[in-house]
């Protein structure tokens, strides 16, 4: 269970090492992901949080190799059970997607094909990855719809996506993604397009399916509430880099990166009613011209000289927490000095 035993017995399910992804546009190279690394163990929920343009979705698209034509992974490795999947050719990748790692997206309407019935799309997903015969495929499709809590599943199989509500479509997407029992489900803003009460339904469903099927989930979202609700471990991203990585409690109660602190301060809370919010000043960084030092420095209240000239390294705060912030380094040095002096 612990990370120790995991590293001894076997490698983590997924290891992302120093991943870089760029888009080559007319305006120049857009560095969307700039060296992110993380591990994901089987059956865990990892949250990736960040604002638009932080590279959280692109990092997932890079794993799945579904980048647009202009995008390319320029550096790094993605090891699934120890095997580098970035080396796979398109055919290998095709059979890998959906069966080992599946993905669901923000807008189920654009992901489901409007001219095929729900049933035929579900059956297609099952047929491609398994060798079930017709009846077994049909039975599996029905079983999946029941699993994700779609009412009247027989009827739904014959219906088309436009006949379903937003929440129902997202359930169908989840059914399709899980039909071949993947080890990892990547959920890219799965509830952003949904209403609060429907969002609660889908989050509840994902949690119960995760317990039942034991898959790992990578949850990509901008919503700190969804992250706090769902995730064991959290990665905070800014300008294509990992600012901070740690358990949910560490990130929310002991944030060490100035950006994470700013994010947490800028959400309205029920307990702090009528207290003024503390927004992060300025606007997001331009990915075409990334600064030499820390990308967040220009918006940071506590930026020091070093922040402008040198990129912060990822530093281990404790066993379950990593942060890449010069202020954190300073804080840790101060704590150490104080500890040393008191001794």
């Amino acid at each position, binding site marked *: 269970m612990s990370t120790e035993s995991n590293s001894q017995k076997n490698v983590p399910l997924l290891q992302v090492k120093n991943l870089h992804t760029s888009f080559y546009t007319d305006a120049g190279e857009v560095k969307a992901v700039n060296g992110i690394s993380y591990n994901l163990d089987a059956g865990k929920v990892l949250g990736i949080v960040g604002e638009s343009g932080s590279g959280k979705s692109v990092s997932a698209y890079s794993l799945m190799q579904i980048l647009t034509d202009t995008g390319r992974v320029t550096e790094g490795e993605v090891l699934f059970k120890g095997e580098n999947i970035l080396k796979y050719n398109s055919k290998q990748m095709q059979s890998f997607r959906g069966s080992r790692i599946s993905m669901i997206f923000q807008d189920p309407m654009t992901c489901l094909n409007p001219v095929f019935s729900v049933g035929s799309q579900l059956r297609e997903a099952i047929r491609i990855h398994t060798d079930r015969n017709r009846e077994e495929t049909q039975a599996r499709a029905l079983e999946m719809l029941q699993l994700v809590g779609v009412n009247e599943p027989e009827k739904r199989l014959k219906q088309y996506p436009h006949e379903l509500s937003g929440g129902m479509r997202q359930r169908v997407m989840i059914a399709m993604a899980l039909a071949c029992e993947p080890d990892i489900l990547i959920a890219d803003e799965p509830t952003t397009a949904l209403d*609060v009460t429907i969002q*609660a339904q889908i989050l509840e469903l994902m949690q119960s399916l995760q317990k039942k099927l034991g898959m790992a989930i990578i949850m990509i979202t901008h919503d700190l509430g969804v992250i706090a609700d769902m995730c064991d471990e959290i990665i905070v991203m800014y300008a294509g880099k990992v600012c901070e990585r740690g358990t949910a409690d560490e990130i929310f109660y002991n944030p060490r990166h100035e950006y994470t602190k700013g994010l947490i301060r800028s959400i309205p809370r029920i307990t702090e009613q009528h207290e003024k919010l503390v927004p992060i000043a300025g606007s997001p960084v331009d990915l075409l011209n990334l600064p030499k030092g820390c990308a967040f420095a220009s918006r940071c209240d506590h930026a020091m000289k070093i922040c402008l000239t040198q990129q912060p390294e990822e530093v281990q705060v404790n066993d379950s927490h990593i942060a890449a912030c010069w202020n954190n380094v300073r804080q840790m040095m101060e704590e150490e000095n104080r500890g040393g002096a008191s001794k």
Partner: protein
Amino acid sequence: MSQEAKHLVDVRDLKEYFTVKSGMLNKLQLKAVDGVSFTIDRGETLGLVGESGCGKTTVGRTLLHLYKPTSGEVYFDGVQVTDKNIDSFRKDMQIVFQDPYSSLNPRMTVADIIGEPLDIHHLYKNKKERAERIAELLTLVGLNSEHANRYAHEFSGGQRQRIGIARALAVNPRFIVCDEPVSALDVSIQAQIINTFEELQQKLGIAYLFIAHDLLVVQHMSRRIAVMYLGRIVEIGPSADIISSPIHPYTESLISAIPMPDPEMARHKNRIILEGDVPSPLHMPKGCPFRTRCRYATKACEEARPELREVSPGRFVACHNR
């Protein structure tokens, strides 16, 4: 009468029905807003929450006569707003839209966007005064006065929303309908805009109808909250009370469904999951519209539609069982 009207905005039994064609000859009535009443005081913020399709945006637009109300009355500072006199109220009542991308004309410079309401209402004597007023407005919403000659596409989402706010402020309104003004923005930018709204209210004493689906944002902004479901207000009252002790079953589940940005709270939260989806407003259930998803629904809910009744001072709930 207009001198000492009790409330700045007084909406009484506002209805907005749209006719929807279904098939060749069939026409259906969509009751987007079905009898909504509320008041807003000077310098106050009333939050209006609900899920998509509940009619909250339509309330805001009908209130401003952007849609012609099917029935009902709107009083502004004691004077009834009608189709005939609405033009004279445009200066007092403004709106900020959700999408800062589609609500600004891409062919106009920022100066022209903000200057347009000034032109229409003849609010300046000469060009110099116009330019000064535009610069003043830009500074007021936290933009740089040098931005005036640029086009909207040169700005980020948050900055565009500031331009939209400056446009609304140009005519010195006393009331602004804010229709999901921060939903399209990132968290850090959202907080900037929320603070801008609050500062402007303190400085200029503007009243807001703050429409949003994000309850955390609404409770932060508003003194009172109205909760809408399928074209009606199901609960209205002081925001602290509504959040801490919701009475209507819909409000209760809405509040329990907010994902709390706090792992400790998330672990101990008792989420009330509503079954199913919102019914189509074209085929509204008989009786209480919420009964199809309500865990407390009884026979009485099928028969009659509950009306709003006062349960404590200033707190109204429309439910048979509470």
